[in-house]
């Protein structure tokens, strides 16, 4: 029974094969799934982008940003305002660019703050956006909220797959590069990192802005999925906390951790949300507390422990099979 040996020598091949299968599954999904399911999966992919980009910055540096909803909402409103003026792909790029620029501004001011203050300020940013956008909308456009011209379900789905793949890929490349190391060193001991030559301000602001860009782009795509948006929907604090909990549930130690969390919680959210909203939120709150209490390093944080246990079990079985005296582990 040489499964463990087979797995470890062909690890890379198996991984690529696995990812390929997932991609095929996603690509062919609309062919056999109903319209509603495609929408659900589209929204889950949105959560994947939000969770992965949140973890890109906050999971490494330890600066807890509560701002995702601000950048996500910015993208939503970019779509709401530009939907009739410009082609969709261009709006996505603009949504990303706007969020990037906005994040640079916010980052330059707030990233010199200690942990808790940074969290509070990014939280306040979301509320700030909600109120300001509502004010501007009522004052300048004479309305509160607007509907979004629908875009073909499947098109949105495929675009979203594209964005999700790009987000995960770029996050992975950054993680593996010297910049990923710089981010982790900032999370480990920012003063030491600075003294070893890392321009911490630049690294923090830049990565914060990149993660914001992905959130903004996701917002643009989310708008036609939501079909109706207003400042409370677009900048709902829920879109800050959901990605965070998804990332934590999945585990921020690896790039695919937040993906796992996003799929699980995203599925729960989209299927349960419609029924009995208050009960869903209550259950969600309970789940949140349980996750923080019992699974702070996430599901992927458990994997090394599980893997070791599994190895132990397998080697024990192997020794029994080969008739050797039972070794004391």
């Amino acid at each position: 029974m040489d499964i463990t040996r087979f797995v470890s020598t062909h690890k890379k091949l198996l991984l690529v094969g696995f990812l390929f299968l997932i991609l095929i599954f996603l690509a062919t999904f609309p062919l056999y799934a109903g319209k509603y399911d495609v929408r659900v999966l589209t929204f889950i992919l949105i959560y994947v982008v939000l969770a992965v980009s949140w973890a890109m910055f906050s999971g490494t540096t330890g600066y807890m940003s509560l701002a995702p909803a601000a950048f996500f909402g910015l993208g939503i409103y970019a779509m709401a305002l530009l939907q009739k003026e410009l082609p969709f792909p261009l709006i996505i790029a603009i949504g990303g660019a706007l969020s990037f620029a906005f994040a640079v501004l916010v980052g330059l001011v707030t990233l010199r703050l200690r942990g808790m203050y940074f969290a509070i300020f990014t939280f306040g940013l979301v509320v700030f956006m909600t109120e300001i956008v509502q004010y501007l909308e009522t004052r300048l456009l004479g309305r509160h909220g607007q509907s979004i011209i629908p875009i073909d379900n499947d098109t949105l789905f495929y675009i979203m797959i594209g964005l999700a793949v790009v987000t995960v890929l770029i996050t992975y490349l950054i993680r593996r590069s010297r910049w990923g190391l710089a981010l982790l060193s900032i999370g480990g001991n920012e003063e030491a990192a600075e003294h070893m030559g890392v321009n911490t301000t630049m690294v923090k602001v830049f990565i914060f802005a990149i993660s914001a860009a992905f959130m903004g782009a996701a917002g643009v795509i989310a708008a036609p999925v939501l079909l109706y948006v207003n400042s409370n929907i677009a900048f709902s604090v829920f879109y800050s906390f959901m990605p965070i909990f998804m990332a934590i549930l999945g585990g921020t130690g690896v790039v695919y951790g937040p993906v796992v969390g996003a799929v699980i919680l995203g599925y729960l959210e989209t299927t349960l949300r419609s029924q009995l909203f208050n009960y869903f939120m209550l259950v969600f709150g309970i789940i949140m507390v349980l996750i923080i209490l019992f699974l702070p390093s996430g599901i992927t944080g458990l994997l090394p422990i599980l893997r070791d246990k599994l190895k132990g079990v397998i080697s024990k079985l192997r020794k029994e099979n080969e008739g050797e005296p039972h070794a004391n582990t």
Partner: protein
Amino acid sequence: MPILEGQGVTKLFGGLAAVSDVDFHVDQGEILGLIGPNGAGKTTLFNLISAALPLSSGEIKFKGQKINGLKPHQICRMGVSRTFQETKVFPNIPVLQNVLLGAFFGTPARISGAAAASEANQALEFVGLSAMGATPINDLTLGSQKRVEVARALATKPELLLLDELMAGLTSTEVGEAMELVTRIRDMGITIVMVEHVMKAIMGISSRVMVLNHGERIAEGTCDEVSSNRQVIDIYLGEETHAGS
């Protein structure tokens, strides 16, 4: 021209002067010992040199260039590196990654991944930890963690290295090993300033010693000169030489 010099260096916290009008110079290739009672301002002086704290007044020059007012990462890239009194290693990444960070970012020139890895491994080997690359930091003893800090600082290719209480908390054997390490670093051509309370180390390897007390420089000279200086004996060395290392 000294590799590092300071004139009128002063740091005020509120009304209190942690460092008061200190002049100093460090010659290339020497080991300068920096001693003084607790709270004398030694670590503060390091923090002023490395720009962890801004100067209240005065000037610090490295290789003739004014460095006060620059940011720590810029000073590192110019060729000044340091270790910390509280051992600021990165607890969330393994040993090799700690040192790699220094290799990647500590020099102004762009360096390839392979070159950085090679630098990092060399630094680890130099401090005697080449087998520990993949070990998580928290599994290491204090002495080993300090060596990782040194390796990390060395990976930034410094010309001047500031060591802040490297020997604190080490056993007598470890102190001997650390002294040998510091000497080897000096032999590579790196100038060293070391803050220490362990007199055996200071007197053993420093070429010159500077003494601070209440933020002021009260003595400077060779080991013999300083250890026979009445003022120094009175306020500091008196207890130390009796207590041993």
